[in-house]
């Protein structure tokens, strides 16, 4: 089981890193989403893996999984939605303003920005 989760984290990280290094905004955003999954699963796994022992207290049950990482990851998931939405609107604004969805400054823009100082 540990091997499976670790592989999932590895695959998500690799895919996320590759996409983050792309040139256009949309793949970069997708890459960040993948990285978010990877990080959330990693954080969750820091409580170690337990099967069939939800942190819902029941009479007569003594083993539960670690609830703390779950609480942290739960808010992280919601916050990462907010952050994704912010990045998306920034990317959208940049594209609508310049008709260009490159994440890199185009070289001539950078030059003029330097000259205007």
């Amino acid at each position, binding site marked *: 089981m540990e091997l499976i989760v670790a592989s999932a984290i590895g695959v998500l990280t690799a895919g996320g890193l590759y996409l983050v*290094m792309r040139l256009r905004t949309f793949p970069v*955003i997708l890459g960040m989403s993948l990285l978010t999954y990877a990080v959330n699963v990693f954080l969750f*796994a820091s*409580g170690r893996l337990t099967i069939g022992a939800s*942190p819902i207290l029941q009479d007569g049950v003594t083993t539960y999984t670690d609830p703390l990482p779950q609480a942290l990851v739960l808010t992280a998931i919601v916050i990462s939605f*907010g952050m994704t939405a912010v990045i998306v*609107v*920034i990317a959208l604004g940049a594209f609508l303003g310049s008709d260009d969805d490159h994440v890199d400054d185009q070289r001539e823009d*950078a030059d003029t920005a330097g000259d205007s100082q």
Partner: protein
Amino acid sequence: MSLFIIVALPFFGALLPGVMNAAGRAACAGVTLMVSLAAFLGLLTNLPALLAGEVVTARVDWMPTLGLNFTLMLDGLGFFFAFLILGIGLLIISYARHYLSRDDHMGEFFTYLLLFQGAMVGIVLSDNILLLLVFWELTSLSSFLLIGYWKHLPEGRQGARMALAVTGMGGLAMIAGMLILGQIVGSYDLSVILQNREAIQADPMYVPALILILLGCFTKSAQFPFHFWLPHAMAAPTPVSAYLHSATMVKAGIFLMARMWPVLSGTPEWFAIVTTAGLVTMVLGALIALFKHDLKALLAFSTVSHLGLITMLLGTGTAFGAMAAVFHILNHATFKAALFMSAGIIDHEAHSRDIRRLGGLRRLMPVTFAIATLAALSMAGIPLLNGFLSKEMMLEEANHTVLFGSYWLVPVLATFGALLSAAYSFRLIGHTFLGPVRDDYPSAPHDPGPGMWLPPAFLVVPVVVIGVAPFLAEPFVRLVTASVLGEAAALPDAHLKIWHGLVPALYMSVIAVVGGLLLMGVFKPLLRVWETAPRPEAKVIFESIVDASVATARGLVLTLHNGAFTRYASITVLAILGLGYHAWSTGTLSAPTREMQAAGAVPIAGLLMLVAATVGLVVLHRNRFLALIFIGIVGLMVSIGFVFLSAPDLAMTQFTVEVVTIILMLLALNFLPKTTPVESSALRHMRDAGLALAGGLAAFSLAFHFMMRDAVAIPISEFHLANSYKGGGGTNVVNVILVDFRGFDTYGEIIVLGIAALLIFALTETLLGGPVRARLLNRNPDQPRAGNMHPTMMVVLTRVMMPVVLMVGFYIFLRGHNEPGGGFIAGLVVSIAVVMQYMASGFHWASDRLRYPYHGVIGAGVLVAGFTGIGSWFVSKPFLTSDFTYVRIPPFEKFELATAALFDVGVLLAVVGAVMLSLESFSRLARRSDMQESEYPMDIDPSRAGLPSQDADAVRTEE
């Protein structure tokens, strides 16, 4: 008056001139004067205690762990400087009121002036060297504003920049020096540092600390080779020059040398550095001053020269030298401020400060002539004026100073400096006021109103009174000197007298005055020699250094920070991998402590789907719709994984977030290109793939090894499991952690979420307010439109589903405390119910029916959660302490009431508001001008009579 109030008054008072500016010039200057006067009187109320031998202190601990305390101290030295700063400040304010023209913004001027005044008073009253540094930097900043006050003058801007660069750099050096000093002593309180002379001077770090602190003092007080900024700061309005260069800014360095005198002085290093710098500055400044034609430039270099004189006196390290320095600080402040103001009057009335265009003003401006002549003669060192007395003391001290083994070096140079000083003073009087009246003045000169000549006249009074009756000033000078000396030296048995008998200092003085007069006789040939001699121009050197630094910095920054995000990303990945590898290869790996758990076919199938979806996403990411489907599968697999691994709450959250994220991405994709073109080279793809694989491998091994071992320290989770029901009243431990144990975290998180949503709203508003708006309204959709945009089936279905989904949300919310669920998940479910209505009937229809704006929903959520937390204050418990009880209302079963549930309501509202505000903002962008906004929930409605309706027409025209 408390020292805190004295320091705070100018700072808070600085708010007033700007407010009063509209009320007129008199009101604006008047209120400034009142602020300064209040601080001045407050200072005087402390005089009796001071005379009784006390040191007035005021202390508030600010950051005691860093040794940074707000500690103020008023001793003789502090009082002396604060008296000069506030007293001369008063005169400057009344002078400036008449000097500034109607075009100058008076409120701005007085705001800067008061800020500067407060910073100066702060320096001289600080008892903590870190606090002193804060005020020290504040003077650099506020003087920058003052010097550059005439923003339209390039010289003003350049002068201000130069002053800031030089004094700011010195300030940085001084911070380092002060920190070393504090490390040596173990305290940053001046009163403690001043007790530790032996420890400081014996420390090996003494010399570095001394040099760094002196760098700060020398740059501030314009000592050679940092003297060049002062004359360029003369581009400021004359009241600023008079204030900064007589009593305040440049005296700050002198003040600090005097303050630190007991612990830093008396060593060979101090003596060699300070005396030499002072001597060179004195002679060089005087020499340049003699040949300046601009009245203010002449005075500027004479200020440099006199500062050198005072520095030299402090450098000798004797008690008599310190006493002479204190006396000269007082005398110089009086006559120099008067001279600067006189120069300002001449400039104001004759419209020129060029000595070559002036002359003969004696008859035209008798009052100014009298004031300026008395002050200038004092500067020249003529008996019966105060400048003579302190110059005598300086020559006396110089006569006993042996520098570099030479008995004659200091006396000769000091006499030469005094001679030059006399010469330029005579030139100032002679070439400006004496001689024939001319008929080619730029403007007809005449004496100004009393508003302008009274302040300098007021300063000439002590010049004469001290000069005639020095014994009047003696107690004060002795008091100040005593506090400069501290416990390092005994007060010298010297007295302030006009006649000391036929001592060498008298002969040196006579030589200086006679020599100065003779020099004036041969001034014209001398000037020709001076003007043909090559001289380094400090400004050119400074500018070239600045330009070179700027070029280097720009080259460096533009190369490193070239705007290529992809490069930053790959460098970051590479750096993290490198650090990780370093940790991996140097650390040790303990043996696994956990058994690997067996996995059945289902988890393996889930992993395979996740891998397949991720690979599909990476390979086919150029097709953006397809990519969204793949990422949806990935999210779904992650949710299922959470279910499998005993995290039902996470699974529900991930699942619902997935839905809204995909909707959001689809909305965004509506505007973005639908495909990603191939741009990078194959090599680059290989490079990125290599980096990504290495990163994935690293994450895999880290996670795997991590999970195979138990935590090194015992996790705190046991506490949560044990107390969840007893203390929090809930059996869903995750939810109890969120709303109870770590409720404060959650509170912060819903605020962050709200801010993110507001940010999205604001960015959308900005887009719609700019040129993008027209493009959006008139764009041609690049995808075929649906024939029926609001299909009847969907409208009916979502309407029917809405109450059901809301009920589910309500149920999830209610059970959250004991079963998987809670505010976050319920909020997301409710949002999905509302979003469905937007999707079915369109943005216009749905937002028309919106009763509460989403901003308000976010705010209400944060407030409900906040007030729940505050509620616990009323029962004297800390913020967000929860409570619960069980009640039974027949015929219902017993149920629980918890304050945490109220908090969860806040979470729910904030989540609904944030999600909806984000999605709504995106869909606002989608409106187009050629799109009919239907007031009906669906395009084709059998119940509506008179088909085909206009909406049906609209649909057809679009096709």
